Structures are given as C-alpha cells and as structure tokens.
C-alpha cells in the first residue's frame, strides 16, 4: 500500500513571494505518477501539476514547479510570484502507473495555503 504525507497543515506567504509545499510518499512501486491538486473555497478540485516517476526532469506549469527526488521519495511544490487566487487547500497525490490501479489516487492530508496581500 502507498502512503502520502504532507507535514505542513498550514502555510502562509506574502503576495508575489515564493512558497514551497512539502510532500513525501512511501511505495514499493517503480512506475507511478505524482500530482498536486488545488481545492479553493469553491471546493472544486483542480489539477495543478503532474510528474511521471520515470522522468528525471521536474515538471513545470507556469508559476508552479516541482522538486521530485525519487530516491528520497519527496515531491515538493514551488509556487513562484504567489497570487491571492492561489489561496486554497493543496493536496499531494500518488497513482500507480500500470496494472489494476483503475486510476485510484492516494492523497495526503492537505496543506492550507493563505496568500496575504
């Protein structure tokens, strides 16, 4: 079984600054995906970024980037130039790549990020 741990229940950052959210995971799988989802107050879960474990290059989506350390089983999210609209709950998630995963995701506990003006 997989586990995902987010050790920061809450984080805050000033607008325009950079913040990093931490995530560690435990698995015996070698092929998998990692994701960061955002849940704003509207409750709609939004995919922020994904990383394939077999790719060494860290994924980047505009102001969002990850630091994927496979050996350390660490997957942090960096948000640059933070904006007020980034205020949300952020979830780290794991998915096995093949076999009978059926697209099941295992989620971490979540980190509430507040961006202050």
């Amino acid at each position, binding site marked *: 079984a997989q586990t*995902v741990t*987010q050790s920061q*229940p809450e984080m805050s950052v000033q607008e325009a600054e950079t913040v990093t959210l931490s995530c560690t995971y435990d698995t015996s799988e070698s092929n998998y*995906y990692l*994701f960061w989802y955002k849940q704003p107050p*509207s*409750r*709609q*879960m939004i*995919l922020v970024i*994904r990383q*394939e474990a077999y790719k060494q290059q860290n994924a980047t989506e505009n102001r969002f980037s990850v630091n994927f350390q496979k050996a350390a089983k660490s997957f942090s999210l960096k948000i640059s130039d933070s904006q007020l609209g980034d205020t949300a709950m952020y*979830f780290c998630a794991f*998915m096995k*790549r*093949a*076999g*009978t*995963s*059926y*697209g*099941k*995701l*295992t*989620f*971490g*506990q*979540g980190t509430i990020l507040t961006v202050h003006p």
Partner: protein
Amino acid sequence: DVKVTQSSRYLVKRTGEKVFLECVQDMDHENMFWYRQDPGLGLRLIYFSYDVKMKEKGDIPEGYSVSREKKERFSLILESASTNQTSMYLCASSLDNRPGTPYNHNSPLHFGNGTRLTVT
C-alpha cells in the same frame, strides 16, 4: 469539458436514516470514485467502480455501499447514517487506464463539487 455533478451541495440527515448521495458524469468515463474528505486526514477512498455493476472497496468502506446501474451514475449509500459519517463527500471520474486500453494511463481524476453531509 468533463462535468461531474453531485446532486446536493449540502445535506442534513438524522441518525439512522438511509442516505443516498448521487453522482453523474457526462464524459463516458469508465471509472468512478467516492472519496471522503476530513480535516487532517485528506481524501480517503470509500469505494470505486471500473464498470457498470462492478465495484470494489476502497480504504474505508465500512458503513457504506454503492450502486452503479448505469455508466454515468454512481451512488453512495449510507444504510444507517451515524454522526461519525458527518463529512465532505467527493465524487470523481476518470477514463480507463488499464493495460491494453487505448487511453494514456495518466488520466487525472475529474471531481464534482462535493456534498457536505451533516448527520445529527
């Protein structure tokens, strides 16, 4: 755009009632999921379904059952609601990602907006 619709945004029920939470998706997705979201615990998988009439238990199935009679609809049933089932319930769907299927198996989940259930 994929749309996953949950029938109620807020629901208040009494202990012992039978509760149905409905979820409909409009993109012909094979997989559907029910998650429960609680503070400090994140999202935990209750049940999922990979085909009509097919279902499998997730991590916390106790006290719940599900029904998938049609591909687009996945219902979560609380046979006898209890106060410890007060929570946010999220439905999600995704395309088939099993080996041999044509779709790239890194399809993310598409979520509904959640049902906040209070059992009193």
